[in-house]
């Protein structure tokens, strides 16, 4: 039982604790630690050992203190009670094909074409060829950590004949036996000309604290289209560190919308790498935070070849003692001529104790480019407030209306009606609750 570790490890440092859990984890594989996965796991733990858990002295974690989160002493989740998934599945079934992942393990899925990493990896299936090649452990402590505990996740390959239903990857973290941490590793490949939609949601069961370390590796083939929606609307005990790395071949398109409107500690690290000419990526993000919520978006748009375009818009509304972080990197590599990249970040701080830290960042090594970023922090337009009040709205109503409009610029990018409606309703509730208070 893992509870023995729980009892003995309370005075260990986070890193020592991870090593101890890693030893238990490898032992628990009962000799099944062979082949591709075992090799990756070894590299993962070695790299984590080399890098350590990043501190606030680390430039990429300057504003986000991972140690304060790890003080909650999450145990690597080893127990899986599949029955907890059923009522959660029903919540999302109207959105598409729900694939529940409980404490990091894929619950047997009946959907065709959707595989468990655990199953396909052992057979060295063609499907897992790209595993560890898009999200690599080298130099990335979070991916290394995830890879050290590599075990399961969703593997999907989509071609022109695949069903068009969105795939709803539903992470369920069960805390009924204590604070848990789960590592998920997903692999999505969209064949040339294909079109896929993947939605990520997260739910916590029980009153404990739950930390998800989710890594997605995604390859979008020539002329293929990929839509990724991340809906983070959990309770304050739901924490997540997500690494979604996507590579785009020639003329591929990516649209990614991240909505972070609930949860505790959230750190998202999406990376779009444009590796084929004519590829296009669009990244949108919305943060609405209150209480002590932390939402940190570290985005990368990497123009590696000529003639690609990208567009990025992240918005935040911060209240209470919440903190928003935005670091948006745009790289234009040598020879990536005729790049057109745009990035904007707009934030509203509503409370004297809320904070926004923004760092838009351009690194350009080609000259025939057009790159622009804009970043603003401000409050609601006084003119607009006055206009609405002169039409009879109360200040609270006027504010809620304007904040909703501010948020809707992002939610309007969600092309799936049922999901957009859910998100908009949640946002309206947030501002309405605010109005009542």
């Amino acid at each position: 039982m893992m509870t023995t570790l729980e009892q003995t490890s309370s005075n260990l440092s986070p890193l020592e604790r991870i090593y101890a859990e890693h030893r238990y984890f490898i032992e628990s594989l009962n000799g099944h630690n062979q082949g591709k996965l075992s090799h990756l796991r070894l590299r993962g733990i070695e790299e984590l050992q080399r890098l350590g858990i990043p501190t606030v002295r680390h430039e990429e974690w300057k504003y986000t203190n991972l140690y304060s989160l790890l003080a909650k002493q999450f145990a690597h989740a080893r127990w899986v009670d599949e029955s907890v998934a059923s009522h959660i599945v029903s919540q999302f079934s109207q959105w598409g094909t729900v694939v529940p992942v409980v404490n990091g393990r894929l619950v047997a899925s009946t959907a065709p074409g959707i595989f468990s990493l655990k199953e396909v990896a052992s057979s060295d299936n063609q499907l897992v060829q790209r595993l560890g090649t898009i999200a690599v452990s080298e130099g990335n402590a979070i991916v290394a950590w995830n890879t050290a505990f590599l075990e399961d996740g969703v593997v999907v390959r989509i071609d022109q004949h695949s069903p068009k239903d969105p795939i709803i990857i539903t992470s369920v973290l069960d805390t009924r036996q204590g604070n848990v941490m789960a590592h998920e590793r997903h692999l999505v490949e969209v064949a040339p000309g294909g079109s896929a939609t993947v939605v990520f949601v997260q739910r916590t069961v029980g009153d404990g604290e739950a930390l998800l370390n989710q890594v997605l590796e995604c390859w979008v083939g020539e002329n293929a289209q990929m839509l990724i929606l991340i809906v983070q609307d959990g309770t304050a005990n739901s924490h997540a560190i997500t690494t979604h790395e996507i590579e785009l071949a020639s003329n591929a398109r990516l649209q990614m919308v991240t909505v972070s409107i609930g949860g505790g500690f959230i750190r998202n690290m999406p990376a779009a790498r444009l590796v084929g000419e004519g590829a296009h990526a669009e990244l949108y993000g919305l943060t609405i935070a209150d209480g002590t919520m932390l939402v940190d978006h570290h985005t990368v748009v990497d123009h590696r070849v000529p003639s690609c375009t990208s567009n990025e818009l992240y918005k935040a509304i911060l209240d209470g003692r919440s903190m928003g972080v935005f670091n948006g990197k745009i790289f234009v590599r040598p020879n990536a001529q005729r790049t057109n990249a745009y990035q904007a970040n707009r934030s509203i701080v509503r409370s004297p104790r809320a904070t926004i830290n923004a760092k838009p960042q351009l690194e350009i090594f080609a000259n025939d480019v057009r790159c622009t970023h804009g970043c603003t922090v401000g409050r609601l337009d006084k003119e607009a407030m006055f206009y609405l009040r002169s039409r009879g709205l109360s200040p609270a109503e006027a504010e809620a209306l304007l904040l909703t409009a501010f948020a809707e610029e992002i939610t309007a990018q969600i092309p799936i009606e049922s999901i957009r409606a859910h998100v908009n309703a949640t946002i309206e509730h947030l501002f309405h609750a605010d109005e009542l208070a």
Partner: protein
Amino acid sequence: MSEQIEQVDVLEQLTSEDYQYKYGFESAIEEEIVPPGLNENIIRLISEKKGEPEWMLQWRLQAFRYWQQMKEPHWANVHYPPIDYQAISYYAAPKRSKQPRSMDEVDPELRRIFEKLGIPLHEQEMLAGVAVDAVLDSVSVATTFREKLKSMGIIFCSMSEAIREYPDLVRKYLGTVVPPNDNFFAALNSAVFSDGSFCYVPPGVRCPIELSTYFRINARNTGQFERTLIIADEGSYVSYLEGCTAPMRDENQLHAAVVELIALKDAEIKYSTVQNWYPGDKEGKGGIYNFVTKRGICLGENSKISWTQVETGSAITWKYPSVILKGDNSVGEFYSVAVTNHRQQADTGTKMIHIGRHTRSRIVSKGISAGYSNNSYRGLVRINPQAENARNFSQCDSLLIGDKCGAHTFPYIEVNNPTAIVEHEATTSKIGEDILFYCNQRGIDTETAVALIINGYAREVLSKLPMEFAVEAQKLLAISLEGSVG
């Protein structure tokens, strides 16, 4: 109108000149140089040579102890081989028997050096309205116009002199803006600084002329560590200019200066720099390592500090002239043009720290990269929780000339107050082929066209410089970029 015409004249002169760093000569004056290396004895020696009081020596020694515990920072986007701090000589001074009492006592050889640089030290030859403090290697060799200024209560002298003559003022303000343990290079400077300029403008006085310091590194294997302190007392105004050059040498030389500005209530300080240290040759050999800490504090309400810089020189630039906006309604400004060519690397920008209420800051940065160079803007805008109604506007543009160079933008925006309005915009682009063709079609060759376009691009910053400097700066921009298009 006449200003613009002037601009063209300058460009005309330029196009006929071949690229050369015209300040690259070496002067054979006799200098006194302490042996290389850094330890307490060297610091005692420097302090003794300058006849400093005990408190100053102790201040230096404390800084040295901080420095010993600090590590050289490497977060900036610049790359260079390790610096051997024990191989540098920390004090070099032209030999002379005593401090000159008047201009006529200045060594004629020294005077010739500055004349060659276009900085005449004879007061009667001075351009109207500029008082100069000339610093050669470690020491100030001459300060002009001081008597005239003194009659208004303005103190403008070398730092060494200020320590001896105005110890109370120096003790009160030295290190209050850039503490000795602020950073590695500031600590080093605090321990070994040799000279620099000191300026105090009394309450209500508007300094009628531009004050200027001209820095020159001459001796081999030495570093230059000057320290400048400017205090503008209540309701006063001063405009200060800084220029710098160095001989062409194959080895790198270190320049680690500290500049502190203090603006009291209703005071204004305008600090302009045209930085033209030797940048190294086309292959990146030689050149100055320029690691400078410049910071001002708007201590009193309604005060204003404005930094304007034109950076064309140095092999490596690491420099962030900053403003701490402490007084309510205070204003901070930063206007910068940074050009890098060949193998130069620049990581420069500013910090605007808003503490007081209704504080405003404005940042305009224009980076130009050419050749194999890398040019980074790094800036911080911080709105502290108590800074009600703070405003910032930043515009950071980068221009790339050629496809082997890099342009990078690292703005940090930290907002802790809901009433703040912060706007940041950045663009990166190249000189459009269509603009070049348009100029060509009017008979303007490509090189002249680039100079014209660059001056247009940098106009907002250049227009903030005093006239004399603006013309000089335009010239420099064009020279720095010669040969980069073709």
